[in-house]
């Protein structure tokens, strides 16, 4: 199928399919101009299906640098300029003109392209937003109207993909109540959990085999809402099969430790352990290793003191995380440090890479524990 030089192919098709031993004139388009509304986005081939299925969006507020989110990942968008002249030629069926337009014409000179770099989601903002207005008791209809966020409000404000946002909400133990995503106040959760355990003892239910309906009904009878009753099971338990739940020993024990330290602040180790062991329900054994990433132990003279320092309250980006850690302590041993950095994820950087970048490692002798200080 020979096409002559001035055949019917036009626009980009003509430029991309110049027959051998022929030429075509390149002109300025009748609509040539800056066309700031036309942008070029460089995209990995593997992301194209996400675009086709319309699962890709730009997220960020006007004071933030935009990110691009697919269903599961977040990418920083960087504008890369060029000093070359990049002539953009649209296909013939776009920017159509009446009359006899040129064969192939340039609609704009592109100043550069947008490129993507995979980044960690910016989820600290999510915590800040949800902490504005904690859910302190079953409010029924006396809802405050500020500091409340629905799913769409969160995707408008938080630079994270849907999946990253959902997983961050899980980590924060957030729950959707009347359409709004909320974090429930620790003290309120404490009441609900105590009531749940209390009811189980009264009714002779095993904490490792709780019937969802019975538990929820018993809490509803005490005046708690259904959604809070269910949330309590989600936060402190896991489904074993069907509607049977098992309370998670570690999560329950950690909860009681946190509430004790919340009430008392820094405590002597002995009095903390004594109170903790007395608070956890029968059949559960509290042990200090459950509290990795939740507490720090400080030695003052011969006395050990313990205080709350939860990894979940720390910034999630590495630079701020390490700065906050070294503000807390100038020197960290690995056995303490690892539980405060293992959740950090930076695309393209291993945890060793993080340590190398943000810490200085010293090891007095070959078999001594390494100590990490700020860089």
């Amino acid at each position, binding site marked *: 199928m020979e096409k002559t030089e001035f055949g019917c192919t036009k626009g*980009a098709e003509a430029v991309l399919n110049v027959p051998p031993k022929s030429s075509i004139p390149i002109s300025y388009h009748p609509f040539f101009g800056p066309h*700031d509304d036309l942008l070029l986005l460089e995209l990995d081939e593997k992301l194209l299906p996400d675009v086709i299925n319309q699962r890709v969006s730009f997220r960020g507020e006007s004071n933030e640098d935009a990110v691009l989110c697919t269903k599961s990942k977040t990418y920083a968008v960087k504008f890369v300029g060029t000093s070359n002249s990049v002539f953009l030629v649209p296909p013939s069926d776009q920017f159509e003109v009446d009359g006899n337009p*040129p064969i192939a014409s340039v609609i704009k000179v592109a100043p550069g392209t947008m490129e993507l770099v995979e980044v960690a989601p910016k989820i600290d903002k999510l915590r800040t937003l949800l902490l504005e207005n904690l859910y302190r008791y079953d409010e029924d209809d006396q809802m405050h109207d500020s500091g409340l966020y629905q799913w769409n409000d969160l995707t408008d404000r938080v630079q994270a993909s849907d999946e990253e946002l959902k997983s961050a909400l899980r980590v924060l133990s957030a729950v959707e109540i009347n359409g709004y995503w909320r974090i429930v106040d620790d003290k309120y959760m404490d009441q609900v959990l105590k009531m749940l355990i209390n009811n189980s003892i009264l009714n002779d239910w095993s904490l490792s085999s709780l019937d969802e309906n019975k538990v929820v009904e018993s809490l509803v009878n005490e005046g708690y809402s259904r959604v809070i009753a269910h949330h309590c099971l989600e936060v402190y338990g896991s489904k074993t099969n069907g509607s049977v739940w098992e309370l998670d020993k570690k999560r329950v024990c950690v909860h009681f430790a946190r509430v004790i330290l919340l009430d008392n602040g820094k405590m002597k180790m002995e009095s903390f352990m004594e109170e903790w062991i007395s608070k956890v329900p029968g059949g559960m054994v509290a042990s200090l290793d459950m509290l990795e990433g939740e507490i720090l132990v400080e030695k003052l003279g011969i006395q050990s003191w313990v205080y709350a320092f939860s990894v979940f309250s720390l910034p999630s980006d590495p630079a701020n995380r390490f700065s906050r850690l070294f503000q807390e302590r100038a020197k960290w041993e690995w056995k303490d440090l690892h539980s405060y950095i293992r959740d950090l994820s930076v695309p393209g950087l291993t945890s060793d890479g993080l340590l190398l970048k943000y810490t200085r490692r010293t090891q007095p002798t070959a078999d001594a524990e390494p100590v990490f200080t700020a860089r």
Partner: protein
Amino acid sequence: MEIKLKCSCGESSWPEWAIIELQGVVEVQPAFQDRMQNLQIGLLCRPSSQETYTFTVGYHELSGSKIPLKKPLLVLKKKMIKSDMEIDQNDSSRVELEVVGIIRQRILFKTRPKALISEPQSAVKEKVRAPCPVVEK
């Protein structure tokens, strides 16, 4: 704010756009500054069956070749969505980006132009800046 990347072409492939890229800047002679529409920039020529090209702009000839892009470029078009609800809390109307095309290859002229002696004067002349690096990705 969330700006969705719209894609109305569904499963079918996006129309392919073309890029002709050269070093430096093509300047239009002052007399033609305000009537650039339909003005011819140059002649794109494919001398053989290979993917090598020449681009003749005024007195100058550039040589280059068609190369596939390592990663495709999507052509996005920004569109304002007019909202019926004018009581929108923020006055900025919503924006939408639509994918209108894809670019998979470019014809790149990365050499300095060669002067042609007996070429007729054209309305467009090319001005080449001091050697500027070609961005290799």
